[in-house]
């Protein structure tokens, strides 16, 4: 191209010529520069607006032009940024059509106008060259726009942060392609800039500077030189304001003046870096800072912290790395491995986005600001996350998860993290994916992990949020929002394509599957668990978006962790290890690739140190701690039992005393049981002696033995003819005295005739057949032939019946009915009751005779009435005895634990979990309870005969005693176990006896 211009060669002319030369290269075109018009734009001024009708193109001579388009939401989307020597708006030159983008000067800019008249003129005069020009223009659409030299300003807004700003600028220069300028070292530049000269940056734009091949220049501001700051801030494509957190979020006067002098449109990106003390635990109130300033993104840095300085520098230089961690439940923890693999190769994460399980890792990385401790924190967060509940709202109550998250996040805002963070959830109310880059962190994470149906959904500002993975399984979009303009690395946990499962049975019977799993000898069938199935279904929708999202990423770390169930949070550490192993080759390939990311100097330094630290570990073999955790658990269990057993043996004497005491108490407990049993069965046994299943008594009497109601014998005749004989009974309390003085006892005198079984069940002797003869229950202690006094009458014991007592051992005395009448009713023909087997055919006549029938059971239970309270009392004593047994066992086990405090502390110091130790303590108690209960069974046999009341013990009572003792003993060990859990390992260090 030949460019003709007027006779006078001016700076302006030269610049224009250069620009045209670069914009329209090699066309053989001759351009008359003097015939072209130029236009100067102020920062923020529009060259054309989107949707305008246009017919001109422009070539930028100086300055910077931003192409913008409406983003459909009232804001604007920034397209390309164009600098000197670029042709812009060229398509309108050909078709005079609608502008597809607006063009706006982002700083003072000079353009040459190429209008349609000029084009027509060229076509007429230089058709050959014009053709080539058109070709150039048409091809422009296919090629990438040239990257203009990027101008970055770093402006400290307080003297206290000047050092940090300089450190950031230096770090940015170390990224290899930027030049740091200090106004003091470049007085001419300083003068030109502050004088408002349009061309002061030309040397960079035109490539006249040594930094010619570099795509960027870093300009460092000065806290007290406002004119310089204004100049560089206006000129910068990206400006980083550095503020001091100690100054508070209010905009200072100097800062306000500066901001007022630089139009918002002047910069394509504005960043705010907040400087914190180097021992700050966390950033705070970032929201307040952002509300008062129009900035695109914020960054936090601690003083004298190279990792932070490096991160801010990479953000400023547009080389910050974003990590997007995908959804995958526990598999997301694989990203921890990826992050470690990156860190070990000098690659730091400068912005991080996460979704679902990935949000936990992302949040920890952002909060910690470093890889150190990330694994431990992630394990802590993920282990035991699930607390299953009745599935009304969700399968998992969420209490644990929420407590963990709340404990970790507190009132922290997403903005208040060292590394910029985005957490993705799905807004179910609006059916959109939401990337939380601000707002309460705990809410965002909890929402992000709430897998539909498994975790409860979360409300945020009245909208229901669920797991972000429903829409976005990999949060690339969230990552982009953080504004880091460098590489995007994605950790993708979606299962590999292709068949992932063996053929599944069509019918999955839960019992059958469980049995196959639990019973040894069966091989468990691999079927997906229902939670996995729900989880997987929820992410189906995101699968399509995943493909689109992956298109624009620079490094796709696709981890295959499908061997771990998504919700198997117990295996976090294994997931991390495998994730790391799989990440390493991918990260190394990424580092070796053409667009290698910027390394972090502080990490690289750490690498060097570690390499120098390579040393040979002593090669002593380590004991095999079983990798199979179940087998390890069993081994620990057996170990703890063996420890408990040897301790029992050591303290055998003390435990023996405890066992002896406990066994006596348990024997008493068993005897009580026997007595209560006896009292409960006594009436039934006594009533059964009479034979017959029905007792006929006067209406109004509830029973026979507790009532004194009688009726005349004459009514019996009116009852019709029963099928069997009607037994007649007269009952009264009476006194019986033996031969010796003072042997009086209360008895129940029973006169009887015609009993269904003829007579009471005799054990010995014969039925009393006349006055002066009686039959008595064995419990009264008489023998056949004994002379006794029955009230006023002398009598002889003619027979003994087995076990016939009432009211806790009051014996019955059987005499003929007539004899009884003589003694108690003056020979009146009265009866207390009739005993029959069947009342069916006399039922009607009973009513007319004012009688009613009671079953034998009813009579027996009525006889129990008077002793119900004593029975209840004995039951209470039983409970108290059990408590005493528990106290004895509890005390002795507790004392043993006190004695063993040092042993326990030592074991705790050596890293033994409290679980096995506590279990051993409980086992000791249970063994004591067991042995004591066995001894109690024998002691009871020895004690029973001494009891005045019969003791009735069945096998089931013995079994119950043994099991109750063991249960009580286990409960009794609670105190000792608590003590064990509180054992302070530090006490192991105390001197002897201490």
């Amino acid at each position, binding site marked *: 191209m030949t460019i003709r211009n007027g006779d006078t060669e001016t700076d302006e002319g030269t610049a224009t010529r250069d620009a045209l030369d670069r914009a329209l290269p090699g066309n053989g075109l001759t351009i008359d520069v003097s015939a072209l018009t130029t236009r100067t734009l102020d920062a923020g001024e529009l060259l054309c607006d989107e949707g305008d009708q246009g017919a001109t193109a422009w070539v930028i001579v100086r300055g910077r032009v931003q192409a913008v388009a409406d983003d459909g939401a009232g804001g604007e989307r920034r397209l390309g940024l164009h600098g000197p020597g670029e042709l812009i708006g060229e398509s309108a030159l050909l078709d005079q059509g609608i502008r597809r983008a607006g063009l706006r000067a982002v700083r003072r800019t000079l353009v040459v106008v190429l209008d349609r008249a000029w084009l027509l003129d060229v076509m007429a005069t230089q058709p050959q060259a014009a053709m080539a020009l058109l070709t150039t223009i048409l091809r422009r659409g296919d090629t990438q726009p040239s990257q203009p030299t990027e101008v970055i300003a770093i402006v400290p807004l307080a003297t206290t942060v000047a050092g940090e700003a300089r450190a950031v600028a230096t770090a940015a220069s170390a990224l290899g392609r930027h030049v740091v300028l200090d106004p003091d070292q470049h007085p001419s530049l300083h003068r030109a800039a502050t004088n408002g000269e349009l061309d002061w940056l030309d040397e960079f734009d035109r490539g006249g500077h040594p930094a010619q091949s570099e795509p960027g220049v870093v300009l460092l501001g000065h806290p007290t030189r406002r004119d310089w700051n204004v100049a560089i801030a206006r000129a910068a494509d990206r400006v980083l304001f550095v503020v001091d957190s100690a100054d508070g979020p209010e905009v200072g006067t100097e800062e306000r003046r500066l901001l007022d002098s630089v139009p918002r449109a002047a910069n394509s990106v504005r960043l705010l870096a907040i400087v914190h003390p180097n021992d700050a635990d966390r950033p705070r109130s970032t929201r307040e800072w952002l509300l008062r300033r129009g900035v695109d993104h914020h960054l936090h840095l601690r003083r004298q912290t190279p990792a932070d300085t490096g991160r801010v520098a990479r953000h400023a230089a547009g080389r910050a790395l974003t990590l997007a961690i995908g959804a995958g439940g526990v598999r997301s923890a694989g990203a921890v491995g990826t992050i470690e693999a990156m860190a070990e190769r000098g690659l730091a994460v400068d912005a991080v986005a996460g979704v679902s399980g990935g949000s936990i890792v992302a949040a920890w990385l952002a909060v910690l600001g470093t890889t150190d401790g990330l694994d*431990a924190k992630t394990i802590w967060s993920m282990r035991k996350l699930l607390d299953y509940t009745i599935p009304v709202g969700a399968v998992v109550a969420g209490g644990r998860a929420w407590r963990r998250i709340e404990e970790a996040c507190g009132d922290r805002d997403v903005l208040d993290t060292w590394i910029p963070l985005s957490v993705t959830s799905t807004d179910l109310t609006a059916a959109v994916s939401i990337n939380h880059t601000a707002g309460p962190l705990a809410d965002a994470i909890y929402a992000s992990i709430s897998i539909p149906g498994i975790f409860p959904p979360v409300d945020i500002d009245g909208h229901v949020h669920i797991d972000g993975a429903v829409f976005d399984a990999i949060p690339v979009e969230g990552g982009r929002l953080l504004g880091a303009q460098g590489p995007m690395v994605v950790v993708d946990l979606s299962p590999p394509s292709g068949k992932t499962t063996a053929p599944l049975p069509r019918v999955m019977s839960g019992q059958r599957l469980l049995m196959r799993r639990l019973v040894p000898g069966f091989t468990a069938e691999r079927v997906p668990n229902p939670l996995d199935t729900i989880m997987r279904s929820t992410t189906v929708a995101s699968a399509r978006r995943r493909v689109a999202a992956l298109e624009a990423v620079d490094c796709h770390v696709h981890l295959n962790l499908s061997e771990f169930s998504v919700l198997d949070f117990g295996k976090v550490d294994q997931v991390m290890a495998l994730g790391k192993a799989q990440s390493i080759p991918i990260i190394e390939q990424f580092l070796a690739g053409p667009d290698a990311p910027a390394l972090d100097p502080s990490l690289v330094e750490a690498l060097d140190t570690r390499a120098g630290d390579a040393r040979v570990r002593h090669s002593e073999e380590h*004991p095999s701690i079983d990798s199979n*955790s179940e087998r390890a658990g069993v081994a620990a269990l057996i170990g703890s039992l063996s420890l408990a057993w040897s301790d029992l043996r050591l303290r055998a004497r003390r435990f023996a005393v405890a066992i002896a005491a406990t066994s006596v108490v348990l024997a008493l407990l068993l005897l009580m049981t026997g007595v209560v049993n006896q009292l409960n069965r006594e009436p039934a046994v006594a009533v059964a002696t009479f034979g017959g299943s029905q007792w006929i008594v006067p209406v109004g009497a509830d029973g026979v033995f507790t009532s004194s109601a009688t009726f005349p014998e004459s009514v019996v005749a009116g009852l019709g003819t029963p099928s069997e004989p009607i037994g007649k009974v007269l009952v009264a309390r009476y006194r019986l005295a033996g031969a010796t003085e003072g042997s009086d006892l209360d008895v129940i005198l029973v006169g009887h005739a015609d009993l269904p079984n003829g007579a009471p069940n005799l054990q010995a002797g014969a039925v009393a057949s006349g006055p002066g003869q009686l039959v008595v229950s064995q419990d009264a202690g008489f023998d056949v032939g004994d002379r006794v006094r029955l009230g006023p009458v002398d009598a002889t014991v003619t027979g003994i019946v087995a076990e016939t007592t009432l009211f806790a051992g009051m014996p019955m005395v059987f005499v003929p009915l007539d004899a009884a009448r003589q003694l108690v009713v003056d020979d009146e023909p009265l009866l207390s009751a009739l005993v029959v087997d069947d009342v069916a055919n006399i039922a009607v006549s009973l009513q007319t005779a004012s009688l009613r029938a009671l079953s034998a059971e009813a009579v027996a239970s009525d006889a129990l009435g008077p002793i119900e309270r004593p029975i209840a009392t004995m039951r209470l004593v039983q409970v108290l005895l059990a408590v005493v047994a528990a106290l004895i066992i509890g005390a002795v086990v507790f004392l043993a634990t006190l004695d063993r405090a040092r042993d326990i502390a030592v074991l705790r110091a*050596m*890293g*033994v*979990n409290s679980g096995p130790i506590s279990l051993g303590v409980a086992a000791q108690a249970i063994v004591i309870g067991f042995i004591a209960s066995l001894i109690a069974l024998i002691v009871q046999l020895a004690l029973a005969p001494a009891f005045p009341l019969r003791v009735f013990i069945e096998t089931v009572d013995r079994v119950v005693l043994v099991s109750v003792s063991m249960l009580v003993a286990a409960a009794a060990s609670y105190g000792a176990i608590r003590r064990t859990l509180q054992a302070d390992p530090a006490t192991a260090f105390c001197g002897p006896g201490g």
Partner: protein
Amino acid sequence: MPSVVIQDLVVEYTSNGYPIRPLDGLSARVGDGELALLLGPSGSGKTTLLSCLGGILRPTAGSITIDGVDIAALDRRSLLAHRRRSVGFVFQAFNLIPSLSALDNVAMPLRLTGTSARSARERAGHLLEQVALADRAEHRPGQLSGGQQQRVAIARGLASGAPLLLADEPTANLDYIQAEEIIVLLRGIAATGHTVIVSTHDERLLPIGDSAIDLAPVLTAESTDEMIQLDAGEVLFRQGSTGVRVYLVENGAIDILRESSDGSESVVACRGAGEYLGELGPMMGKPRSATARAASKSTVRSMSVHDFRQLDADQRA
């Protein structure tokens, strides 16, 4: 690079309402395979430091990096794992479990952390051989001498295969002969590549350490020795006061007096030229137990405990 790096370690707790800082800004390093001695009088924080190293006590501030891991930043669960895998302990009071045989004492911590009984006992047997106690494997601690118990304890400390062994006053309860066995044993363990950190105020251990961490209270005016002129009757220091200086009598004589509670004084000793006085209090971090008063016009050299030790060592050499 050392395998144990301690930086700016601070431990603080409250005792009867008074804040106590057994460790205040301690920094130290112990190299891989070294036998390091923690020196200092009682109460100087030796045990506290060992507890921190062992992951039993969490320091108030500072960091402890063992094999590249800052254990001060670990959570409870990771600390437990650290104790299990990375450190072994040997205690002053041996702390063997009385109910278990020597073999089981070594094996039990392994078993309780999930090693099968057979392999734990196998390893325990092997370790007891190393400490020359294979023939006493089935004896209970009560049937072993103190030295033997401590050897069992060392075997137990090594059982987990941890690279770091922490021993707290391992020879304090032992007589000379038994202590020597233990010292030789610890030296041998360090030689096999373990890092061994031994807290002690046992002078006998000094020569075998590769390095020493001195926890003696930091004394002011550490470096400068100065001459003090005293007239007859002038008091150098009073009973019950605390001081950090040791005094060497250059010329003259100093009476050492003990004051009784009834106010009377009695001269317990007199130090002449070339003799030193007031060394016990500063070295043990305790108040002066007597008053020192010039018996005649005297000159004394006031020096720090460190210099005094130096001087003492030089004289002995």
